[in-house]
């Protein structure tokens, strides 16, 4: 079947089904499968690998000696164990925070420059999105395994859990408002219950993702940033402690899930 007729069939299913909502969900699932065959995220992965190996910054060094937690230069499987505590920085770090750290320490790039462009616009691509695509793709098929073996990791998990339930802003929303119960939707968009292991695994292991509607790979930092925007909160700062605490909570809840990122989303 050609893609066009497949799409037309999915559209037909969307419009004319008996139990409309269920048929729509099936149609969306078929659409996802259809476009997953060629994920544009692969272009970002290739670009990210180039950037990883390029000599850059005042120190003219590559990121190839960056320690993502499994030792300098070990990329395969590293994402599955993040966030984690790093002794050299005395801080719990997620992937993006660790990449910034490596740019600063290995390449001599300033902290401000390393954080300048985390989320691309159509006119301004982001190296961070490419680097994250490369690193996460190297953990495809690996099971999430956030150990919480260090006290600071356990503390960040606990703090992240409190943030998840923190209601505020003009609309009284918390993360849990949308992601605290099973089988809920906003409009036709299914919402994962991030306190339920199966949903948490499925959600976390498919970020970062190439967003068809945005034409780029979005990172997990972006996912949180944009959730808080819709939550009517102020702007979550890139690689802030709160972002790492919340990521620690969500990543740990996804333990045992098999990474399939960068995935493809609407």
């Amino acid at each position, binding site marked *: 079947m050609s893609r066009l007729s497949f799409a037309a069939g999915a559209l037909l299913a969307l419009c004319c089904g008996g139990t409309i909502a269920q048929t729509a969900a099936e149609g969306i699932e078929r659409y996802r499968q259809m476009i997953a065959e060629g994920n544009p995220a692969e272009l970002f992965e290739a670009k990210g690998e180039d950037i990883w190996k390029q000599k850059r910054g005042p120190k003219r060094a590559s990121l190839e000696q960056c320690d993502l937690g499994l030792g300098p230069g070990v990329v395969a499987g590293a994402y599955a164990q993040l966030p984690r505590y790093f002794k050299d920085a005395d801080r719990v770090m997620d992937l993006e925070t660790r990449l910034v750290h490596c740019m600063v320490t290995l390449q001599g790039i300033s902290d401000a420059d390393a954080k300048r462009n985390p989320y691309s616009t159509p006119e301004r691509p982001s190296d961070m999105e490419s680097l994250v695509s490369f690193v996460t793709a190297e953990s495809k098929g690996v099971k999430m395994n956030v150990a919480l073996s260090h006290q600071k990791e356990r503390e960040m998990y606990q*703090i992240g859990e409190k943030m998840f*339930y923190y*209601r505020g802003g003009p609309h*009284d929303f918390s993360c849990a408002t*949308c992601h*605290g119960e099973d089988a809920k939707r906003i*409009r*036709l968009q299914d919402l994962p219950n991030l306190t339920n292991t199966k949903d948490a695994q499925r959600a976390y292991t498919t970020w970062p993702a190439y967003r068809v509607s945005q034409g780029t790979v979005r990172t997990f930092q972006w996912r949180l940033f944009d959730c808080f925007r819709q939550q009517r909160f102020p*702007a979550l700062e890139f690689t802030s*402690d709160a972002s790492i605490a919340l990521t620690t909570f969500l990543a740990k809840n996804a333990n045992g899930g098999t990474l399939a990122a960068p995935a493809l989303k609407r």
Partner: protein
Amino acid sequence: MNMKFLVTPAVLLLAACATSLSEDEAQKQAVSMMKSSFKAQGQASLARLDQDEVQATCSKYPPGATITKDVADKIEKAQFAAIKYPAKLMGDWKAGERVAQIGTGFQFSDGPTAPVGANCYACHRMSKGEISYGTIGPSLYQFGKLRGTSQPIQQYTYGKIYNSNAYTACSNMPRFGHSKILTEAQMADLTALLLDPASPVNQ
């Protein structure tokens, strides 16, 4: 006796590993960490991180949790007492339908003149015709047909939109009037959308 002596330190060690912070300490650190991790942008100031009493209490009762009766009563009584009703509770259902469809407003990405909507369809089924509806809240289809348009029903409907917590403590629904999200006219139009026999909600 010897067994007990051996087991106790192991249990203590396990407990120490499982958690590091007390509940209060974790909450305190979460609040201070959030204050240093967000920045004001557009119309969203850092003051939005400050909780009122309802938000602080309800953060302890996530969706699905059972709220003790005294806690719920206290919230509902205080929130109910603060509802302000306009002279005319029911407006124009057509205008209400437009407000129900709009999802923008109060995000830092929304311009100050962007329309502020109620976004009802994000969470509720409302009418037969709109199939793109969410399920966080209950279905409101035929809300008025089942209840009629008596004065007490109008008061209840307007009041629930104005402040959901006046009727259900720690509801997921925003307090549209209490928190000054919608205008009186918008809330009266939504009341009409729910109650007017001619509204698509009641077909």
